[in-house]
Structures are given as C-alpha cells and as structure tokens.
C-alpha cells in the first residue's frame, strides 16, 4: 500500500474538500491553545510555559486527528485517492497521535508538579491545607510559609514522580490512583518505605548550620543510607493521623 503519486481527477475533489476542512482545524486549535495558556497563566506568571505549549499542541493534535480520522475513514474514504487516504491515515493515525501523546505526557509530567494537581485528590486536602496554614509548624508548612521552596512545593520533596521520576514513582502513581478510584485505601494514609534523605540533604547538608551538629556527624552513615530519616528528629512533615480529619466512611486511627 504505497502512497500513490498520481491522483485521478475524480478523487481530487474529495481530497480538496478534506484538505479545506483540515484548514478549518487551524483556527480551532489555535483557540484551544490560547484558552489553555490563559488558564495556566492565572498563577500570575507571565508567558506560556513549555508544559502549556505542549499541552496546547496536544489539544490541537488530538482534535485534528479526531476530525481527520472520522473524515478519512468514515466519510470520504470511498471518494478519496488511495494516496491521499494513506497520507491522511499516516497523519491521523500516527503523526497527530504522537503529538497528542507527547502533549498529554508533558502535561502530566509538568502539571503533576503543581500543588493544585496534588490537591485534586481530596485525600490530599488536609496536607495541602496544612501546608498553606501559616500557623502550622509542620515541616511542609514552614518550608511553604518561609518561601524556602518557591514553587512546586509538593514535588520538591516528593521527587519520585515527574519527568525525572523513577519507575517506582510511576508504579506508586498507578497504585495510588487505583486505590483512590476504587475507594480501597486504608486510613490513615502513610508514607511507604524509607524516605530518601537526599531530598533534604540536597539543600541542607552543605550548610555550616547542618555540619555543626554533632548528631548529624554521628548519624552520617545511617542518614546516607536512609536507615534513619531526617524527619525522625525534625518532623512531622505533615499533620499526624490524629491531626487530620477522617475521610467520611473511613475509620479513625487508634
């Protein structure tokens, strides 16, 4: 099924119609890009971020591909030159979907870094509310209140997801999502495994204030292997189970 170079005149009208229709896609897609960009910019940051651009491109690609596929496969297929049909399939079944997937991936990788996306699961509300509470003394709240982490506060300490996230991070994401949508999570939710201290030491370990503390030197071996968490002494990073509201229908911790 090679793309044909010669197109019979009888088919060219149909192809032209399809092409004209495709031209309509451009303004529509542009509109979508603009809408997305303005939505993303409400945080106050000027301009369009890479993630927003890719999301716009993804939207454009997805809409275009949908329209193109419907037209090429179900409306104009019989009236189209074989070459045009195959070209449109190449665009609609491969090129545009690739852009759509890239756009979606970039969106998820970029957008999951935002506090808002974490907060989109209601399980996370107590954690985000606490972080934004200026009178809270949890580690998260102090880092937030004092501006120690200017942006993407959740992601900065939970770096296993996002672009550079580990495979474990992706799996955890899937597990969390499954637990969430099936409502099978257990209260109180808690952090599984040993927290990677590198998330703390990355910023703190180089400071004289950190190095002056004899306990840090004494525990160096344990800290570097995550056998002792920094938060053991400096926590709690978030409200403890007793300090969090219980999700309706779930059991309170004892």
């Amino acid at each position, binding site marked *: 099924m090679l793309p044909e170079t010669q197109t019979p005149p009888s088919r060219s009208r149909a192809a032209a119609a399809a092409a004209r229709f495709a031209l309509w896609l451009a303004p529509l897609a542009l509109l979508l890009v603009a809408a997305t960009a303005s939505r993303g910019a409400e945080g106050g940051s000027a301009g369009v971020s890479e993630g927003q651009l890719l999301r716009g491109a993804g939207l454009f690609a997805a809409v275009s591909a949908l329209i193109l596929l419907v037209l090429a496969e179900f409306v104009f297929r019989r009236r189209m030159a074989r070459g045009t049909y195959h070209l449109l399939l190449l665009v609609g079944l491969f090129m545009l979907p690739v852009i759509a997937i890239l756009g979606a991936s970039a969106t998820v990788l970029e957008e999951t870094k935002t506090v808002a996306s974490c907060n989109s699961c209601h399980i996370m509300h107590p954690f985000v509310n606490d972080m934004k509470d200026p*009178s*809270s*003394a949890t580690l998260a709240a*102090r880092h937030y209140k004092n501006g120690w982490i200017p942006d993407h506060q959740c992601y900065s300490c939970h770096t296993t997801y996002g672009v550079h996230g580990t495979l*474990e991070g992706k*799996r*955890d994401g899937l*597990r969390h999502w*499954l*637990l969430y949508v*099936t409502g*099978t*999570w*257990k209260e109180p939710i*808690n952090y*599984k*495994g*040993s927290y990677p201290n590198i998330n703390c030491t990355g910023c703190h370990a180089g400071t004289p204030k950190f190095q002056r503390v*004899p*306990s840090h*030197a*004494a*525990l160096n*071996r*344990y800290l570097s*292997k*995550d*056998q*002792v968490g920094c*938060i*053991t*002494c*400096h*926590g*709690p990073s978030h409200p*403890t*189970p*007793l*300090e969090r509201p219980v999700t309706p229908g779930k059991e309170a*911790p*004892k």
Partner: protein
Amino acid sequence: MAGRKHADGGAEWWDAAAEDEDGTGDVLTPGGLTRRELLRLLALSASGLVVSGSLAGCDTALWVRQDVVPVDSWHKGVCRFCGTGCGMMIGVHDGKVVDVRGDELAHNRGRLCIKGVLNREILYVKDRATKPLIRENGALREATWDEAMALVARRFKESIAAHGPDSVAFYGSGQLYTQESYTANKLFKAGIGTNNVDGNPRLCMASAAAGYTSVFGKDEPSGCYEDIDHADCILLTGSNAADCHPIIWERVLDRKRSKPDTYVIVVDPRRTRTARRADLHLAIYPGTDVTLYNAFLHEFVRTGAVDREMVERYLKFQQAGTPPQPRTFAQFREHVAKFTPEKAAAVCGVSADAIREAAFRFARAKASLSLWTMGLNQQFQATASNRLVMAMHLLTGQIGRPGATPFSLTGQPNAGGGVRDTGALAHTLPNGRMVAKPKDRAEMEKLWGVPAGRISAKPGYDAVGLFSAMERGDVKCCLVMGTNPAQSLPNADRFRKAMEKTFLVVADAFHPTETTQFADVVLPAALWTEKEGVFSQSERRYHLVPKLVDPPGEARSDLAILVDLADRLGQGALVKARTPVDVWDEWRKMSASSKYNFEGITYERLQKERGILWPCPTEDHPGTKRRFVPGEDPLAHGTAGKDRFDFYGMPDGRAVIWLHGQEAAQDPASPEYPLRLATGRVLEHWHTATITGRVPALQDVPIDFLEMNAMDAARLGIGEGDRVEVRSRRGEVELRARVGDYVRPGVVFATFHSAKHLINRAVKETVDPISKEPDFKNSAVAVRRKGGPESNAA
C-alpha cells in the same frame, strides 16, 4: 476481504451475527475479534483489576515501596532514655530489634532524638552482662544464678541477723520498670523492715518531688505536655531542653513557630542551645535562683499582677523552717519587698531591667508555663527554688488552665511512676504517703497485708546519706539496680571507697561499669524490650514497654531477680505478684485508695493506648490533663466554672506559697578556687553513658571538654582545645578547653558522661537540706592550663 470462517463458528463482534448470516463472508470486522475473544479479553482485564485491587491491600516489593531496614513486625513501645518518654514503634527482624521509629500517634508526634533512634542498637552493643559474677580473692568469676543468689541471700540474712534490717539497703533507679521498683520497695520496707530504699532519682528529681509535695500536698506536676501548645510565655529555668529533652524543646519551638510572639525566657548561667533561641536569657550567677524568683514575686506585687481570688480562696503563706510558720499575705508582701530588681540584679549578675521585663512578660501573658529540671533541682536551695517557681504561678493565677502550669521535667524514663509514685525513696511510701506519718504506715501495712509495725518508723538513708553510712560501716549490704553510682555520685572518690567496704550486689545490663568494679556480685539484667514493664514520664503518663526479644546469655529481668531474692530471704509470701501483669494489677488496685487513683489504667488499656495520664479512676476515664481543676480532675471537688481549684492534697484545700530567703553557697569561692563548676549533659549521650557510650555511632561525640568563658580563658592563658586541669578541694580532672560564650564569666561546665575524666571527683557532696538532693551545679574550682591542643589527650 475474503470471509474468514472462524473455527469456532463464532460471530464477529459488532452486528456480525446478521452479516455472518448473509453468507457473503465479506463481513466488516474492523475489530477482528470474535465474541469469544472479546469475552476472553474482558475476563482478562477484569481479573487484572481484581489482582491489582487485591495487590492494593498487600505489600509486595513489586507493588509497594519497602523499608531500607527489613522488618518482620512493628510493636508499640517507649524510648529507653530520658523522662520525655517518647512513644516509638519498634521493628523486629529475625528475633532482633533492628529499627525504631517515632510513634505518630503518641505525644511526640513521631519525633525521636538521636538517642531515641539508637534504641535499635543498645541491646547489641559490647559489654552486655550475660552471666552472674562473684568476687573471689579480689577478682570476679563466673557463677551460676543459684550460686550467686544464694550468696546474696546468705550475706543479706547474716547482716540482718547481726546488725538489724537497717544494715541492708536497696539503691534503685528511675530506669527500672514500675513493677520492679514497686516490688523492691515492698520487699525491703514491708518484708525486711527497713526504709533503706533509695536510688538515683534522689540525684535527679527529689527536689521537684519535695517542692510539689510541700506546695500542693501531693507530688507530681499538675499540668501536661499539651500545655506547651497553649502557652504564651514559656520560662525555662535550669533546663537545657534543647540538649536534654529535645522532643519537648521541639514542641516549644513548634509553639513559637505557630505563634511567633510566644515569649521564651531562659534562666541559665550557661548560654546553652536552649538559651540561644530565647527571647530573653537571664544568665544568673549559680545558686542565686531564690533571689531572682523573689524579685519576680516582688514585681508581681508591685505591678498589681497578683490574682486576688487565688490569694483569698486557694492559697496560704508559710515561712520555711522547722516547723514552718504561717504567714499572711501582708507579711509575704513585706518579705518580697526586700528583693527589688536592683538588689536582685546585684546578686544574680543580670540587669534589673531584664528581671522586670521577665516578670512583666510572665505575669501578663495569657498563659505562662515554666519548665525546669536539673538546673533547679541540683542545688543547695533546690526545694526553695522549686517552691518559688510554683509560687510565681500560684500568685498570678498562671495555673490550671491550658498553657499555664509549673512543670518539672524528669530526667529518667520512670523516675515519676516507678520511684516517686511507688514511694521507692527512703522517706516515702506508695501514693504520696510518708514514712514519718503513723497513719500512712498503718495504711500501707494493711494494704500489703503485713503485721502492724512491720514498716519501720525511721526514714531510711537518702542517696548521699546511704553511701556515707556505707563509709561508716552502718550499711553492710546493698543491692544496686540499674544505676551507676560510682560515676554519678558527687565527690566520687569518697563514695567509691565506701562501696569497696560494702557487700555490693550490682544488677545491671552491662559489665564492666564504674560500679560493677566495686561489686561483690554482678547480676546480669535484661534491658528495655528484653523484659516487659510500665514506664511513666514527666506528665504522669503510664505507658507500656513490651517484651520483644530474649535477653543475652543468662540475663534476667530485674523483677525476676527481686522475686528470687524475696523467696530466698523468706519473703516469698509477701511478693505474691510475680509477673509484670500481676504486679501492675496489684499496684493499680492499690492506687484506688489514694489521691493518685489510676485504677482505670488496666494492662489491656496500656497495650492498646499510647499511655494514659493519671488520675484515671475508671476504665472508661480518658485520663486527666490538669489536676486539681474541678471538672477536669475526677478527684477534685467543686463546680466546674465556679470553683477554680481544689488542692485536695492539702487538708484545707489551699496550696502553699513559701517564704524563702537567699542563702550563701556551700562550697564558697576563694582566691584559690575562684570559679563555679556546673555539670550536665550533651544531646547525644545520656547520664553516665553506660549505654550511649557503647553505641558505635556515638563514639566520636566529644564529652571530655570544659566549657569556659573567653574572658576567664584569656585571663588564665587558656586557648581553644588546650588541655586543662579542673581542681577542687576534693579532686582534679583533666579535660579539653572549649572557649567561647558558652557560659557566663566565672562559671565553667563539664559533662558527667565521661568515666575516664570523671568530673564528679571535683563536685562537692552538698545536699539540699529538704530534698537531700546533691548540688551538682555549684562547686568551687580552679582551672589551670596543662598543655596545648597538640599534646595528647590523657
């Protein structure tokens, strides 16, 4: 497309049935799936969901992140170290404790300090005692339990027969479980018939106990940790909480983080890590506390901060002395008028403005909390200082509501519940009863089921008194349990000689210690989770430490040792309760007859809950946060909201404000000994470092240093890291100088962790005349340079 005949004859998956029937065979089947295939697919995805759903509940490594340290099971327990009493989860793997984590549901909210973290290692460090040892021809040799215990029983019996019951003694510890201290106390006081039951809490908590008892009629603080979360002014006096109660200090900092205008005042001659974070640091000269607090009281009166209702309804005034003299409020006012801030400033060595500011902040805050520990308790006028801090709260009404309370911190995990509440001190009996009171003795004789008159009317020897009695030869045999007096007592050399003269039985989890070298019999004891028992920390919270692993070698729990000893001394019938559960039940039920009622704290509750604060009279009672407050304290009478207090420890329901004057230092400075020595701890080590000193991770944490002010150091020609000799009228110690602003001029500081450079050789054995607690914070010393930093440390 040629019709594809499916072997199974199945139809195509969308409207295929009709199309298949038309027999063209040219069926539009974009899916290319048969119905069977579709069903198979659906079933597969459904089973996939089921699998992942069930995986959601299981913790395989493929599905859930695993801990770095593999753990088979987690158990709720309590830290082995200080009186903060942090709840922790203890991880066991292959029959060994391998990990600990802060318990999120306990009061410490999941926090632990470095010592707490290292609980995971303490059971497996070197020098664990594993076999009984008997001294023979000057050297300790291994023996069987039977041999060792037979020897102990024989020597005790001989001594009692020849010299009377008061020739034997028990020297216990705030680290024993409540069941153990209770049993020892019962065995010696109601069995053997001597009140020679004392212990290291005498070096630690006795002044606070004497203070509370004399002010409220009953021992133990009335508030709780939660008060920190509500306080607007926090006074830490004689407490370096940042190093010595780190998790409590974090809670103080949390309060400041939540409410930055919370005012923190620190009174301490040292510029500790605690003092560095204070809003106001009063670096008073050692031993001048009484003047400072009197000046505060004076300021309260002068500025009209006195709570009139408190004075009229809930307080009375007494002049300290034997016997105490009643005083009126007018007389009290006259008394404190002598302590103007200006006069106090001259005595204490801080500015009058600072005193006024501190007094104003304390009195005018919505809720003021004071925290103190050894800085206040280990002084010649320690009980007086305790009473005056309590007076500050009572006079201004800063007590009995959230955030307002005078709160003493304990140093050991079970000095409160184990020793103070069980009355395992020379002058006390269980639940706040006194040896000196015939009624109290009679009550206990009845409760313990022993003949009237069995409990001796004569209070026993307090710690320093006990070792002095050994020195004189009055006490012939002593059982030392879970403590290391050869290192922790003041004027160490003197009391080491006393120990040499005595038949000393030392039950400890470690050998050698400074004390086991003087032992005639060493009994290997189980440590922490190798045995089960109940601890009680600073806020009257009883909580359980479970038995999780087996002790090493032949080591036994201290309770088992005491029960065995009781049997061998013919007191088996008295010690009927022989397991931690049975002893607890006996003790719990006994408390019902007292103002310490915690009958509702059953073993089942201890196993389930994160500890409970007494009073707790019934099983459905949640525990009491604030004592003496009607409506909160089940033992307090009165109408909540109308009556503020019922100080039911006192017959007239009124707490006492004591009048005390400043007294001179007992080890006076002289041109030869111009500096004042105070001793204390660092964050990473604990007490005599019997345990922490053996944890590999803590080996390099410096403890052999002498903190001194740069001005003193310059005058003496001493530089940072120089070898220096600290000399007193009693002995000398060599240390490394740490020069800076760590202490106020005229004061030097050393830790008592180091056995190699034992600072207690230099400390004077002065005791508070009321509490009999030694003054570790105010000895006269001289410091001399011995060499530069490059020369080898001794």
